[in-house]
């Protein structure tokens, strides 16, 4: 109890300095949490698009981005006939632009695609989809920013399309996207006969390995991955995740420098006290534990405050209409744990030099000048 009081005492003595240091850690943690969670959410949403009513994604092997993947129609036809496949849905991804919106995601899908079947249609009739080549269905947010309603003709890219439906989905990318009949999208993006991916629903999930091996054997240029496997291995996701952690880590590193600075100041200002503790029999370990303890209190307080700020920030972002569906504020326990651990490690690393300095304090020198 006294040891804890010795730790906290110094923080209370220099309240402003302690608060600034805790705030530094808190904002670092909040930044890391926000960036990582937003990007994880974005990845989750994109994975959600791919895994809609399916377990496996088939795409062109060794492509850096699914937008560049080409899966031939012949592959689709053959895979659809395999006995373990319940259904195979081709999807063509494209990026188009419209007035004021340089990036609009376009999905070329068939009428039987789960995205069309299972979405909540706020306007139009699902059965009318893919009847004409210039028909499109808009996500609700896309309809909003394009200023389009049912029956309108809207300019998208180099074409004019007829809006035959508006649908609402929980997925931000889909909600802000345009759905075209597959053949129209193939023509529009000059990818006749191809799709970007085929999403596969198996009759029996246990056949996943068999399915992947069959794809490998029959179509050496294609690869089949289970959804979770794809999320883990897709290079774009890996880059996004690494970027998120790197940006957050840099923030935390700055916080760590703050802790180091505070702890050095703390040791300098309590040299006499450390000398007294030495005279009272404190060992090097006990002195170091006191410094590390002080650092841990700062870091953990900062981490807790940071989690609170980060969660509030994410919740606020979710409320911004323009970001509706793009921000998934679900805080993953693993992310929380990693953020807290990183903050703690940073804080303790920041206390290394101050602790070493404190351990070298010679009582006789500190006490000589009374």
């Amino acid at each position, binding site marked *: 109890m*006294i*040891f804890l*009081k*010795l730790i906290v*005492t110094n923080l*209370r*003595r220099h309240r402003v300095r302690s608060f600034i240091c805790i705030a530094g850690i808190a904002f670092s943690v909040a930044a890391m949490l926000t960036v990582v969670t937003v990007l994880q959410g974005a990845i989750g949403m994109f994975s959600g698009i791919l895994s809609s009513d399916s377990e496996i994604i088939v795409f062109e092997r060794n492509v850096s981005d699914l937008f560049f993947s080409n899966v031939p129609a012949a592959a689709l036809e053959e895979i659809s006939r395999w006995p373990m496949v319940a259904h195979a849905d081709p999807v063509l991804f494209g990026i188009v632009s419209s007035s004021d919106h340089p990036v609009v995601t376009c999905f070329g899908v068939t009428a039987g695609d789960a995205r069309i079947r299972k979405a909540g249609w706020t306007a139009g009739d699902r059965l009318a989809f893919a009847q004409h080549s210039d028909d499109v269905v808009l996500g609700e947010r896309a309809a909003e920013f394009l200023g389009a309603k049912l029956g309108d003709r809207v300019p998208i890219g180099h074409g004019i399309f007829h809006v035959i439906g508006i649908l609402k989905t929980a997925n931000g990318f889909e909600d802000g996207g345009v759905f075209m009949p597959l053949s129209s999208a193939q023509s529009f993006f000059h990818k006749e006969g191809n799709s970007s991916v085929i999403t596969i629903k198996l009759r029996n999930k246990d056949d996943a390995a068999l399915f992947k091996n069959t794809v490998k054997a029959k179509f050496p240029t294609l690869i089949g991955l289970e959804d979770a496997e794809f999320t883990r291995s897709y290079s774009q996701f890996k880059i996004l995740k690494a970027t998120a952690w790197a940006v957050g880590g840099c923030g935390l590193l700055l916080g760590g420098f703050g802790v180091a600075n505070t702890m050095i100041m703390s040791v300098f200002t309590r040299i*006499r*006290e450390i000398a*007294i*503790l*030495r*005279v*009272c*029999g*404190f*060992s090097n370990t*006990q002195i170091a534990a006191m410094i590390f303890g002080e650092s841990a209190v700062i870091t953990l307080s900062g981490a807790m405050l940071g989690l609170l700020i980060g969660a509030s920030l994410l919740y606020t972002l979710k409320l911004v209409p323009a970001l509706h569906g793009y921000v998934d504020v679900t805080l993953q326990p693993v992310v929380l744990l990693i953020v807290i651990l990183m903050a703690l490690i940073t804080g303790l690393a920041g206390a290394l030099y101050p602790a070493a300095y404190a351990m070298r304090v*010679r*009582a*006789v020198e500190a*006490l*000589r000048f*009374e």
Partner: protein
Amino acid sequence: MIPSGLQTRNEHRVVLRAEGVWKSYDDGAIAVLKGVDFETFEGQTIALCGPSGCGKSTLLHLFGGLDAPDRGLVSVNGVEVNRHRNLLRLLRHEVGFVFQLHNLIPDLTLEENCLIPTMAAGTDRGTAQARLHQLAESTGLTHRLGQRIQKLSGGERQRTALCRALMNRPKILLADEPTGSLDEHASAAVFALLLEIVATEGVTLVMATHDRSLAARCDRLLDMHDGRIDEA
């Protein structure tokens, strides 16, 4: 060289010994101790007198293992201090320090300050509390145990420092001008208490002081001149 006249005390155990101790600062530019010889026995009270800068504090620091001599030997209970394999044991169990300034931690209470040495030594809570209450009673501080240091008078602070120094039942108490920061009345009271407690506890007291009237009340009065000791 052991001062003459000490041979009569040979029936007691030597607890503190210095032989030919030299100490200088600034790479030898300032020589403070120049071959100090000193010996004291269990339960003795010794006053070190001398002008400022004559080396009284330095000698106490050497006795307590806070510093090492350039040459010579300092031993506590037969164990050479500067070769002491476990200085922690020396500071935790063999010697206690009282300084001119109380050197208490102001944010802690009297009780918490006194418990620091027992915490450092890993003494169990019950034993530490019992010892604290015993010493608080001896020093008349029982009613002040929960007080913060800022609320104590100068005399009370120095009595607290005395309690803290004796918490782990050291065999030697090293006091560096223990009454130097107190007024005459408080100084006399604290010194009387100091003598009473060391007598009760059987502790050897080595005290540096400028006050020759207080020093005269110790068993031995040693004068320090030019880095050496003369027994008065």
